[in-house]
């Protein structure tokens, strides 16, 4: 089947960046189509509506596609990585399964070469993105508190913060005694009625989809607005390759498999990749032609390279006092005390902390038994009662500097259900990352003990911690060292744009979704300003 009548803009992927770029471009009145390999989610079926809500995080709502194995998923060979890839495939993408922790990158993150002599500066900066951060906060519905001394003062979340809770008070008091920064997180969770969304009621299990609709995922934020504005979203459509007009070197469309498994060609004047830092290089590398024998837009050889995950460490403590457990959004406080470079620490760049209220009853039992803290036999019950609802945790998110050997390639054997080669991950932790993780663990242990922990546990790095997929089609001014320019356009193919986490030049040390979406809005704005000369 073929749709030779070209659409103006074809977007691949409907997640964090795909939803944002579609909505922003919709006011041009161009014909815009988005292809999404998964389907719409029904919030009535989210885990928190059932008694098996904790079990489903290891089943159909697992964060690992290799574990989930839904029809909408593609496999990922991440055997050669100490950090496993996580994602979700459906309308909303991985915003369906994220924790909605919503910090921005810092101004310094865009200038790491200038400031610290490592990696590369971005071709854009924080101040260029600032209006798009703000616009994204409004569209997403962000809660938080103005005045965080870790950020420039213009950041004003539109809603008041999530509750501090018992856990927050314990941690805040400890951080004050240590003299360390902490602050209510910016969270993509409503704390009051907002644009037709109900406020958070502390279901406690944000990650596996919010049945209340309080957590912002793009299926309930950007997409309804984009569709009302005329964007067409086609679900259950898996793109196999982007095709090229060999005469012009321009993209002329895509080949995809529709919901019936039929091969379809869709012509397009502009193609925008929004398929995340693994899906985008996979598709570019699968789009081989005589002009691009090593993959589309890959004359630099940078497609798939410089993969950055954010190495995470988890540090948790047990306390005599009762904590919040799973009775609220898991993340609502952060610390950026150790974010900016201090070379006396033995590493460059830095990390943030996200404070966790606690975990649910089943996860507590599973983790504690796996680690030998919860015994078999007669002592099981008494021990468990000291653990359950007595835990808090700190997750350290470390800046991951780009390295050429950390990369996404195509697996020579593994394929998805449509026979499309699957991505293969090769990744190692750098010495800088190890030092940063060790520093974070030592300081977080100090914090836990200051808060009164009688026992502390550590996981380094978090194995199932590949939430953030960054850097594999990096942004830069030099076509020999980057894939897209400072406004998201491929150096090689002038009607191909990338707006997802692939374009990150460096990773920063915070959750990236807010910045990914601000970049998508920025690229859309640049496209609109340059419509007459878009392909020059």
């Amino acid at each position: 089947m073929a749709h030779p009548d070209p659409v103006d803009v074809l977007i691949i992927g409907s997640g964090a960046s795909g939803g944002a770029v579609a909505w922003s471009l919709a006011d041009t009145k161009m014909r815009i189509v988005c292809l999404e390999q998964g389907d719409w989610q029904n919030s009535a079926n989210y885990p928190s509506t059932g008694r098996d809500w904790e079990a489903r995080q290891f089943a159909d709502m697992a964060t690992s596609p290799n574990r989930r194995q839904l029809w909408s998923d593609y496999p990922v060979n991440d055997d050669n990585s100490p950090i496993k890839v996580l994602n979700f495939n459906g309308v909303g993408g991985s915003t369906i399964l994220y924790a909605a922790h919503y910090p921005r990158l810092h101004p310094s993150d865009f200038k790491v070469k200038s400031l610290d002599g490592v990696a590369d500066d971005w071709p854009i900066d924080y101040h260029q993105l600032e209006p798009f951060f703000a616009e994204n906060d409004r569209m997403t519905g962000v809660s938080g508190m103005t005045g965080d001394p870790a950020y420039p003062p213009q950041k004003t979340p539109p809603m008041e913060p999530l509750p501090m809770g018992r856990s927050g008070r314990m941690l805040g008091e400890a951080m004050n005694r240590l003299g360390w920064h902490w602050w209510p997180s910016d969270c993509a969770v409503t704390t009051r009625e907002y644009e037709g969304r109900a406020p958070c009621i502390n279901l406690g299990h944000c990650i596996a989809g919010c049945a209340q609709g309080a957590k912002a995922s793009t299926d309930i934020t950007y997409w309804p607005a984009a569709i009302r504005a005329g964007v067409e979203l086609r679900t259950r459509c898996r793109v196999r390759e982007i095709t090229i007009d060999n005469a012009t070197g321009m993209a002329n469309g895509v080949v995809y498999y529709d919901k019936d498994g039929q091969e379809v060609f869709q012509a397009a004047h502009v193609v925008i990749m929004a398929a995340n830092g693994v899906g985008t290089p996979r598709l570019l590398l699968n789009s081989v032609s005589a002009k691009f024998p090593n993959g589309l837009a890959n004359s630099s050889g940078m497609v798939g390279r410089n993969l950055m995950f954010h190495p995470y460490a988890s540090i948790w403590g047990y306390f005599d006092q009762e904590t919040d457990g799973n009775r609220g959004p898991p993340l609502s406080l952060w610390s950026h005390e150790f974010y900016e470079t201090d070379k006396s620490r033995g590493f460059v760049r830095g990390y943030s902390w996200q404070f966790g209220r606690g975990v649910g009853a089943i996860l507590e039992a599973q983790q504690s038994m796996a680690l030998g803290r919860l015994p078999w036999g007669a002592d099981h019950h008494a021990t468990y009662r000291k653990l359950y609802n007595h835990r808090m945790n700190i997750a350290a998110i470390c800046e991951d500097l780009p390295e050429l050997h950390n990369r996404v390639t195509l697996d020579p054997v593994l394929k998805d259900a449509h026979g499309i080669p699957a991505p293969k991950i090769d990744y190692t932790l750098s010495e800088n990352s190890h030092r940063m993780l060790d520093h974070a663990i030592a300081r977080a242990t100090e914090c836990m003990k200051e808060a009164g922990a009688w026992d502390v546990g550590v996981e380094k790095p978090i194995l199932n911690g590949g939430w953030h997929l960054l850097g594999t089609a990096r942004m830069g001014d030099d076509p020999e060292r980057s894939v897209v320019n400072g406004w998201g356009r491929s150096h090689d193919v002038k009607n191909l744009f990338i707006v997802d986490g692939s374009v990150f030049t460096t990773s920063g040390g915070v959750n990236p979704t807010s910045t990914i979406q601000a970049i998508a809005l920025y690229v859309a704005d640049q496209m609109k300003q340059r419509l007459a000369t878009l392909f020059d």
Partner: protein
Amino acid sequence: MSNTLANPPPSWGDPTLTDAEKRTLAAMCARMIPASAEFKVPGADDPLIQADIAKSLGRDATAVHEALALLDRIAGGDFAALPVAKQDEACATLRAEGGMNLTLTTRIVLQCYYRDDRVMISLGMEPRPPFPKGHVLPQGDWSLLDPVRARGKIWRDA
């Protein structure tokens, strides 16, 4: 439950346990989480909990079959037939040698045990899903941030 599908793919393994496997599983669960009169909870060998486990193998069916087979091998053939002291010895060996198959098996046992109404009530939990009632959290006093505000800017100019 959610770890199951009407037609699970063969790669997940046989979703049903044999009668012999059920006996081994129940005996193992009794050693893992015994009933407690003090805490007013059943053991993990309780028939309702065992029934929940048996229908929840899902993606881990192969791991459960293999863990139970290993336990019977450690026991010399029939774990359930051993005296309790010998069962505890066999369980200790299983915990040393069971690896990921045992981890996945215990994960299912625990997920079914700790969602049982009687166990949840014993822990002070309401036996219900989180939605639609949710939970109540203390809002807290944000004046606790005053020392952070007083310290001033920590972000780096760029």
